[in-house]
């Protein structure tokens, strides 16, 4: 059994806004969410990269303590966007709790803030042997904390998939959720990811010389995907969720259909855990097209992973060129607006792609002024471009050699096709 799968609700907390209108405005106006790195009282002074994709606006969560007691900051983001999509979905309580709705949600590594508090006890003089590690610390920090805090808050009893594959965490969540619904294991899935403010992640990339350091005094000028002046990625924070539903039942109940997920692929490079791999990435892109049963010519837009590292962007450009050839789809690196939101990037980039589909424009890659010679073969978007995106590809690649590609068809196109 193969069923069609549609996105019927979405929500994203991003460094360039939370409300849909704010995010679209940021994309249209070229507003960056990259800000100076905030002091965390721990690693801040040792890190060379002084920039971060920051969620620096207040969010009115309103979670009761009975739920919030098991939540670290990462679960706040996750539960907030999950709450949004459930509210917007119009799904009734019986369905939400009935076992046919599942959750595919993850984060890079649970809650580093809570983990830090736990580790702190290791270095204290515990003469009194108090129970310094609280009963809920594990629940707040564990790697599947986002997924199960969502199930707990909304009484969801279906399947739980808690992907945790760094930068492909939420693209895998959407992909695995899509497969759950497509093959009839579940009728709907809340899919996404979240990652909280965390300087340990910055420190990791900083030590690998992969973080941007040349624009510390002008944060908005970095990251610079595909630009010859790029000097690395900028870590960011945020959360995002999409609700996937089986197409026929969504249509029957009159749910607004934002987009259809028509294809997904995920593979591994089978070797190095850090270096980007042309063959692995190229294979993923082709497998996604095969899964969707479409040709490269059908794709109008590529949301590139484009972290703005020196080699990553070049390898990705080569992969896109190999799959799509000359005069291929428009290409934008959406991380240029907000940095790399780690486990969240796949779902945020999917949601932003659906916003642009609906609005009929493609946002340019911010800070792309002088295209790197080695990336020049693509159809880069350097200014706001009115365009109809019928089908978009969202590409993400992660440490560990994991690659994903999601293919989504616009809701507008579906209306035309009937």
């Amino acid at each position, binding site marked *: 059994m193969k069923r069609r799968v549609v996105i019927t609700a979405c929500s994203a907390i991003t460094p360039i806004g939370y409300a849909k209108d704010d995010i679209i405005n940021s994309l249209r106006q070229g507003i960056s969410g990259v800000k100076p790195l905030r002091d965390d009282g721990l690693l801040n002074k040792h890190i060379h990269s002084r920039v971060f994709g920051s969620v620096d606006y207040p969010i009115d969560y309103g979670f009761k303590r*009975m739920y919030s*007691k098991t939540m670290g900051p990462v679960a706040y983001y996750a539960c907030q966007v999950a709450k949004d999509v459930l509210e917007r979905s119009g799904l009734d309580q019986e369905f939400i709790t009935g076992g046919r709705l599942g959750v595919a949600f993850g984060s890079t590594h649970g809650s580093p803030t809570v983990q830090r508090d736990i580790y702190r006890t290791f270095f204290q003089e515990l003469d*009194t042997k108090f129970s310094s590690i609280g009963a*809920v610390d594990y629940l707040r920090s564990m790697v599947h904390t986002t997924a199960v805090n969502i199930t707990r808050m909304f009484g969801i009893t279906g399947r739980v998939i808690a992907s945790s594959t760094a930068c492909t965490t939420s693209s895998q969540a959407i992909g695995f959720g899509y497969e759950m619904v497509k093959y009839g294991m579940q009728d709907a899935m809340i899919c996404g990811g979240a990652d909280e403010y965390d300087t340990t992640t910055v420190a990791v990339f900083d030590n690998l010389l992969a973080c941007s350091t040349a624009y510390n005094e002008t944060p908005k000028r970095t990251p610079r995907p595909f630009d010859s002046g790029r000097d690395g990625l900028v870590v960011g924070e945020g959360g995002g969720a999409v609700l996937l539903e089986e197409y026929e039942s969504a249509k029957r109940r009159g749910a607004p259909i934002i987009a259809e997920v028509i294809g997904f692929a995920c593979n591994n490079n089978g070797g190095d855990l850090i270096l980007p791999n042309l063959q692995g990435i190229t294979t993923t892109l082709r497998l996604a097209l095969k899964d969707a049963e479409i040709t490269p010519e059908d794709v109008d837009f590529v949301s590139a992973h484009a972290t703005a590292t020196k080699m990553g962007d070049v390898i990705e450009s080569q992969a896109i060129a190999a799959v799509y050839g000359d005069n291929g789809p428009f290409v934008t690196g959406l991380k240029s607006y907000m940095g790399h939101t780690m486990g969240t990037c796949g779902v945020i980039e999917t949601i932003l792609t659906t916003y642009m589909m609906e609005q009929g424009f493609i946002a340019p890659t911010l800070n792309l002024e002088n295209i790197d010679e080695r990336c020049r073969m693509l159809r880069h978007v350097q200014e706001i471009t009115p365009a109809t995106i019928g089908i978009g590809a969202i590409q993400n690649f992660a440490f560990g050699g994991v690659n994903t590609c999601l293919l989504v068809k616009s809701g507008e196109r579906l209306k035309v096709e009937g």
Partner: protein
Amino acid sequence: MTRDALQEKILAILIEDFEFEKPGLNDNLRDDHGFDSIDAIELLGKIELILGYSLTWEEKEKAMGIRTINDILDYIETIEASRRLKTED
């Protein structure tokens, strides 16, 4: 510590840390305030801080019978008395 002083401390913890609204001494912790097993373990950690020493496994097990705020106060007083007796022995 007098029972009144202890009561004041426990009520402050329940209101501030556990977000109890208008706690009554004989309210059922679970039914009236949504106090669950996770909360019970958290509260034991806070009781250890009040007492200034770690509770033993056996002492913690005795806390499983707590149903009301009065039970919490009785529990703490019993632990204190028991420890005093052991010290005197």
